[in-house]
């Protein structure tokens, strides 16, 4: 019994120590626990809502009175032609976004770094940040204005140079929509996304360049053999983050840039969920689309991670 008693005492001592630290740290708890509760409500609780996808959810009825329908909504989903269009659009635009939204800022950062004139460099940088801070509402307005058939600069230029005979309705043609979204995104975010690469390039050892110059390496060779390998770790980190963002394909730009004429190319899964779920009040169907969207996102993430792992021996997750 002696041993057991000692154990008991030690246990008590330990728990009283825990209690003591708890008491001495009560302020730290008071400063953090309320916000744990906060994210529980706003971030974790909605996941419970996924049960709606398996019910014929009727708002206002208590949970236990909802009718359970299993995978009915998912089966409906796979029979809807519009769903497959939305899936295609989602995949196409997230792929284009990853491809160009990632590479172009690197090229821009490298070219900007080659500028010797420091005022020109600073001014260019400051100007290219600007669109990042402007809302998509404004950007969509600007894009529509630039591409408009009456007085839009793009049409004026194309007609002026004789490439087009008459103004072209870019915003009304579905086949242009993906390009418009991708290019608008680049216009908005290129300067901002280059920040991190510029910082990485600035951190490279200038002696490397000196040595290369002594050896007679041209600027292209310096870029290829010093700058690019030097910022490789940064490129990988950003690629990882970008792949992580595949999950948040987003619908804001599609929603703001689209109109009924291009819906066939503009409606992404989330927009489809929004139109059905809230627009038509079909909450269960909308939730099912949302769940499918999450599944696609995770699938994309895993796929990209697999490819990435093969070529770099590093992993996102």
């Amino acid at each position, binding site marked *: 019994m002696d041993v057991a008693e000692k154990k008991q005492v030690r246990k008590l001592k330990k728990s009283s120590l825990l209690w003591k630290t708890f008491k001495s740290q009560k302020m730290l708890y008071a400063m953090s626990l309320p916000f744990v509760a*906060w994210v529980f409500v*706003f*971030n974790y609780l*909605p996941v419970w809502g996924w049960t709606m996808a398996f019910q014929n959810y009727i708002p206002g009825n208590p949970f236990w009175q909802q009718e359970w329908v299993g995978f009915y909504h998912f089966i409906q989903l796979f029979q809807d032609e519009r769903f497959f269009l939305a899936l295609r659009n989602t995949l196409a635009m997230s792929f284009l976004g990853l491809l160009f939204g990632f590479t172009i800022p690197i090229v821009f950062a490298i*070219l900007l770094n080659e500028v010797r004139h420091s005022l020109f460099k600073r001014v260019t940088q400051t100007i290219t940040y600007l669109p990042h801070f402007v809302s998509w509402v404004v950007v969509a307005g600007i894009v529509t204005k630039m591409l408009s058939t009456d007085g839009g*600069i793009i049409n004026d230029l194309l007609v002026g140079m004789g490439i087009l005979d008459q103004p072209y309705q870019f915003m009304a043609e579905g086949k242009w929509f993906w390009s418009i979204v991708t290019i608008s995104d680049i216009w908005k975010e290129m300067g901002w996304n280059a920040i991190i690469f510029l910082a990485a390039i600035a951190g490279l050892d200038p002696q490397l360049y000196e040595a290369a*110059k002594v050896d007679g390496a041209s600027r292209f060779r310096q870029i290829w053999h010093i700058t690019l390998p030097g910022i490789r770790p940064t490129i990988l*980190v950003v690629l990882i983050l970008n792949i992580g963002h595949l999950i948040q394909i987003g619908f804001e730009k599609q929603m703001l840039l689209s109109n009924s004429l291009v819906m066939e190319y503009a409606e992404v899964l989330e927009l489809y969920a929004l139109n059905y779920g809230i627009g*038509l009040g079909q909450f269960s169907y909308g939730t099912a689309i949302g769940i499918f969207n999450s599944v696609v996102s995770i699938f994309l993430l895993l796929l990209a991670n697999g490819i990435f792992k093969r070529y770099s021996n590093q992993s996102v997750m």
Partner: protein
Amino acid sequence: MANPSDLYQTTVREKIFDVVNYLFLSIVIVITLYPFLNVLAISLNDSTDTVRGGIYIWPREFTLNNYLEILKYDNLVTGFVNSVLRTVLGTILGVFIQAMVAFTLSRTDFQGRRFVSVVIVLTMYFSGGLIPGYMLIRDLGLINSFWVYILPGLVSAFNIIIIRSFIDGLPFSLQESAKMDGANDFVIFYRIILPLCKPVLATIALFVAVGQWNSWFDTYLYNSMNDSLTTLQYELMKILDNTAMGGSQDANLMRPNDEQQVNRVSPQSIKMAITMVTVVPIIMVYPFVQRYFIQGMTLGAVKQ
């Protein structure tokens, strides 16, 4: 500067590279700035004259009338007030709370650290989705309420991580000496840590403020029935609405069309004046915090 490379003559190829590079970057500048200048020029041009077209970067018939005209749109004035309110309140509350949580997570002696950290960081990797999120807001009674702009995004995991990595870089001895003097943890946070975090807090404040100022979707989803809760971006969205060219069919169920019938007739110049009003506050602020956000961006990405 005694640079040995100066001794080497730049070759013709390098010169060409430089010329092409400057040319290319200048084109980038033009493409970035032109739309803003165009919007500005149209907003300062007489609205009936604008219809004739041909305004590029300089107004033909200068006037400030378009800006005065905006004041007649009641919703725009209410929207402006609400946008300012949500930006100010959301930024102050958000930055303070995020800094406070970040502080507790930087305390390696904090028992609950792991738990708090995991619960909060996980939120970056999943989301309940649009519809369940909407149902939650509805169940919480936040529809038709100003608080829907402030509350849901208050605890941002991403921002907390950035602030935390900044606090981690501060010497811990500062906290210890304060503790010896009998200061409790909140006092340490408020009196010692907060003032030292100015650079990172400036960055986060910029992020939060821009996010608040620019958001329109929450107004559209939750408060579109209530004109007294409208925001500037939402009003702009309705006025600029791109569906104007195609007319709306059932594919566009979610677009509120009733009011647009009125707004559709608002002249080009007035639309552009409203655009300027939403853009100018941001243009005025961001160059001043530029040196901070570059620091913050780099910190955030490296520490992830």
